[in-house]
């Protein structure tokens, strides 16, 4: 094994290219703005000169003799007729111009001052603080730029101004790049360190271009379109412009044309050179392609999300991956993923032929590359012989190749059931966004998975797409199975509870199966039980000569053996259950004895029963439990049937009258409060103005109205109502939503306050000025079912808009915050001893989290669950000992 030695970067130094250096590294002096001749051969001394490298296979580079994949490419150069400013150094040029004397080229500070600064530089050089050096350089600049009379030659300098983007003016007079260059040439090497340049590698006049480097052709390759048409890279287009204008400028200069024409051409050359570097320079119109699209030049290649850094270096496209729409499949285990046969035939796993897999691989090769068939049989796309040569498997040669197969060959076999893959949904906000699944090859064209797995991926099926990656090595597969499998990620490190669990209809179904322990007819019960993987049935009971199963007995089938648990369900604190027994869920020796199974038992992130099974029986048993749970739920709900509609919110006439009464009462109460306020009968509450006091009292009165309407609604809507079942069991929605549909929607607020903005002293022109009553400030007394009146509708939309804006702002802000956090923490790792180290080996934490606790194994943040241990060790007897 080769020992890898990690090296740290001690120092990075940036330097400027001198004209000589540009010429020295140049392979060719480019003089013609053309690329190819009519026969398609590159023109000598043109922009595609073969001395600058080759892009067509078969050709050889004129400089190094290498072929396409051997030649690294070589720079060329253009001799500029007149010097131009480099847009990247505008700031530096400006600061040097203003801090040096235009006559003698010295920094405009007395020798004593300069000496002082040199001392300080030397000082910081010993201590290696770049920031301080930069501070000194900018101090020199700000001190020197204000000086008018040069202390060295007593010349009276004029103030230089930068006329963006590239023009410098001295008291209104234009400074040409040529003049700037001449000034810079006068600056002494000794002064350069105070300007921030190292005279060994950089001279200020090199910031003004006289020679222009032409990048190698493989930086700007010609693309041949399907039609045979050639299309040049944006950079090449820009270089054509530069050369063309450069030529015209030279001709005009040599002919002695009028100064005006020369200056115009010079400016044009400056424009082309500027946009060659950065086509988004402020103050410069971007250079455009014939089609009107703006050109992508050097800076655009690197910058931003689509730039080289973020798009090609921080992230790359990969092989062995697939992406398609997702859809649900309740009959898959949470550990599985359904892969369309079409994708499975494209995605391959490379296996080396050994004695152990010889016959299996031989059969697979015989299957060929596969056809669309009712039953999926994995085939083989390619095989590699020992010498590395590749054979494509077709239906014709499959039998022949299978016979020839030898030990040591590599076989690219298609995906089969049981392969381990990674499955991912963006945005990947936590580690559960990418988990390992077992493949099940299925017909049709979507990826499919168990509904319980929606939560960690934050997926739904309204058109979401997900990515899949096939693991290629034995090590990767082993690691993924141990660390990344869905069942290994049951417990979230965020809160130490199960992140996956039953959702929506699962909860509804099992709630209906267990609420008040219904009797299920024998045949129905047996059919429901056929959905789950059990080998026994509960004892049926006989009622009126007919045989039934009890709902809780059926549910108990999916419980692991010997579960003993007692906890409070959602119904525990509701007044719905008069006896209050359904809320207390009790499981004894693996049998549900009492209570209705609801969100608190099996729901995601709060299911106490699920949490208990996971911790006591382990992840594998937990996965089996959830698999059976979801299947059972599917069976139950498809047999019992469940649906909801707007008439679920129908309430009797007397209830309607009561609700109207509640609304009117609230409005009158508010009126009364306002009257008291106007008569000065309201006292100030601590820390509030009189207006605030009134507001808070009004808000209180109105929210009471909504609560009252909620009470009335839940009184008249019973457990025979689908929406109530969903709300009570925690499957979806809550009683407030129902109250809003059936009764009163309530106060609409913006930033926690009643609506108050809009017109002068009123929210809408429909109200009297100064009206601060309930309706004028956004109280909605209608229900969703009845519909809202126009002003109510407006206020409701206003409140809704606030919610939408809030979400948009929040996601973008928290996303950026998370990005910075991840960038700061990405290369920290936990060592074998549990220390947290960075890449240098420095300690970040002596013990992970400073307590060594894995948060996903913690009990709501605590390392040990004492209550649980006591119960497990001493049995339920000890229950009474709890105070």
């Amino acid at each position: 094994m080769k020992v890898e030695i990690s090296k740290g970067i001690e120092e990075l130094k940036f330097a400027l290219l001198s004209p000589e250096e540009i010429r020295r590294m140049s392979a060719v002096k480019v003089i013609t703005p053309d690329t190819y001749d009519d026969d398609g051969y590159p023109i000598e001394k043109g922009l595609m000169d073969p001395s600058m490298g080759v892009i067509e296979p078969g050709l050889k580079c004129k400089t190094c003799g290498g072929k396409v994949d051997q030649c690294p490419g070589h720079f060329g150069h253009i001799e500029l007729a007149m010097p131009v400013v480099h847009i990247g150094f505008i700031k530096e040029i400006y600061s040097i111009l203003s801090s040096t004397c235009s006559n003698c080229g010295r920094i405009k500070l007395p020798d004593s001052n300069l000496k002082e600064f040199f001392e300080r530089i030397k000082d910081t050089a010993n201590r290696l603080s770049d920031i301080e050096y930069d501070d000194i350089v900018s101090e020199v600049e700000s001190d020197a730029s204000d000086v008018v009379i040069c202390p060295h030659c007593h010349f009276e300098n004029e103030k230089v101004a930068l006329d963006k983007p590239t023009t410098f003016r001295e008291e209104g007079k234009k400074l040409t790049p040529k003049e700037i260059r001449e000034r810079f040439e006068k600056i002494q090497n000794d002064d350069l360190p105070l300007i921030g340049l190292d005279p060994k590698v950089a001279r200020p006049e090199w910031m003004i271009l006289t020679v222009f480097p032409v990048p190698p052709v493989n930086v700007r390759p010609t693309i041949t379109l399907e039609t045979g048409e050639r299309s040049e890279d944006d950079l090449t287009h820009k270089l054509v412009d530069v050369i063309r204008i450069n030529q015209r400028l030279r001709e005009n200069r040599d002919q002695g044309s009028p100064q005006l024409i020369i200056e115009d051409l010079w400016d044009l050359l400056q424009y082309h050179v500027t946009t060659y570097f950065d086509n988004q320079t402020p103050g410069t119109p971007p250079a455009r392609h014939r089609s009107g699209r703006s050109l992508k030049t050097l800076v655009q290649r690197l910058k931003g999300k689509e730039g080289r850094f973020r798009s090609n270096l921080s992230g790359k496209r990969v092989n062995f991956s697939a992406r398609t729409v997702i859809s649900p499949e309740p009959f898959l285990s949470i550990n599985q993923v359904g892969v369309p046969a079409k994708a499975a035939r494209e995605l391959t796993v490379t296996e080396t032929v050994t004695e152990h897999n010889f016959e299996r691989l031989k059969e697979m090769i015989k299957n060929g590359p596969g056809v669309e068939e009712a039953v999926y049989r994995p085939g083989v796309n390619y095989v590699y012989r020992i010498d590395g040569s590749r054979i494509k498997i077709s239906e014709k040669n499959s039998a022949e190749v299978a016979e020839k197969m030898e030990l040591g060959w590599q076989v690219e076999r298609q995906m089969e059931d049981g392969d381990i893959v990674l499955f991912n949904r963006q945005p990947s906000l936590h580690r559960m966004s990418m988990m390992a699944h077992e493949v099940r090859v299925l017909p049709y064209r979507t990826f499919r998975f168990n509904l319980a797995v929606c939560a960690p991926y934050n997926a739904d099926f309204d058109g979401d797409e997900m990515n899949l990656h096939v693991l290629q090595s034995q090590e990767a597969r082993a690691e993924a199975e141990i660390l990344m499998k869905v069942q290994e990620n049951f417990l979230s490190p965020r809160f130490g509870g199960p992140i996956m669990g039953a959702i929506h209809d699962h909860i509804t179904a099992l709630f209906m199966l267990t609420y008040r322990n219904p009797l299920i007819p024998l045949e129905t019960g047996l059919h429901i039980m056929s959905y789950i993987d059990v080998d026994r049935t509960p004892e049926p009971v006989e009622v009126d000569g007919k045989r039934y199963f009890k709902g809780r007995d059926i549910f108990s089938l999916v419980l692991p053996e010997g579960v003993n648990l007692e906890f409070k369900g959602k119904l525990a604190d509701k007044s719905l259950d008069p006896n209050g027994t359904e809320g207390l869920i009790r499981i004894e020796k693996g049998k549900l004895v009492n209570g209705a199974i609801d969100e608190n038992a099996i729901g995601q992130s709060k299911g106490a029963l699920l949490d208990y099974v996971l911790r006591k029986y382990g992840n594998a048993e937990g996965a089996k439990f959830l698999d059976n749970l979801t299947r059972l739920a599917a069976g139950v709900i498809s047999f019992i049937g469940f649906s909801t509609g707007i008439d679920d919110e129908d309430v009797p006439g007397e209830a309607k009258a009561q609700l109207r009464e509640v609304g009117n009462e609230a409005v009158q109460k508010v009126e009364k409060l306002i009257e008291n306020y106007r008569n000065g009968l309201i006292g100030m509450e601590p820390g509030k103005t009189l207006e605030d006091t009134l507001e808070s009292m009004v808000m209180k009165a109105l929210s009471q109205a909504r609560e009252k309407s909620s009470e009335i609604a839940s009184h008249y809507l019973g457990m025979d109502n689908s929406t109530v079942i969903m709300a009570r069991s925690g499957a979806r929605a809550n009683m407030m939503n129902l109250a809003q549909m059936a009764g009163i929607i309530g106060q609409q607020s913006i930033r926690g306050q009643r609506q108050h903005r809009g017109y002068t002293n009123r929210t809408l022109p429909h109200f009297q000025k100064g009206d601060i009553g309930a309706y004028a400030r956004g109280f909605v007394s209608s229900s969703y079912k009845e519909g809202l009146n126009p002003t109510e509708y407006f206020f409701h939309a206003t409140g809704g808009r606030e919610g939408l804006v809030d979400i948009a702002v929040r996601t973008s802000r928290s996303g950026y915050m998370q990005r910075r956090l991840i960038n700061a923490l990405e290369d920290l790792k936990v060592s074998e001893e549990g220390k947290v180290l960075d890449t240098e080996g420095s300690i970040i934490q002596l013990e992970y989290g400073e307590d060594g606790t894995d948060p996903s194994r913690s009990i709501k943040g605590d390392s040990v669950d004492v209550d649980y241990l006591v119960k497990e060790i001493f049995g339920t007897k000890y229950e009474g000992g709890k105070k």
Partner: protein
Amino acid sequence: MAKYNILMHEMVPEHWLVPVKEEEKILKSLGVTKGQLPKIRRTDPVIKTLEKAPGIGEIVPGRIIEIVRKSRTRGIAKIYRTVIGE
């Protein structure tokens, strides 16, 4: 002289100067070198306050500070920092 002692504030964890004699023992038990430990500036207000405590005097770069925090999960969490210049 500062009016308050910041070390007495309830949100500032305990800071102790580790005696030179014990430094090696502690580093050995942690299995790290001085350079690997997190740093604390000599100009840190806590260090300045410590220096004023009787019998401590100037704390030179290279000394080790023990910080004792209360933790809900761990009881007390001890961490160490190396004093650096500036």
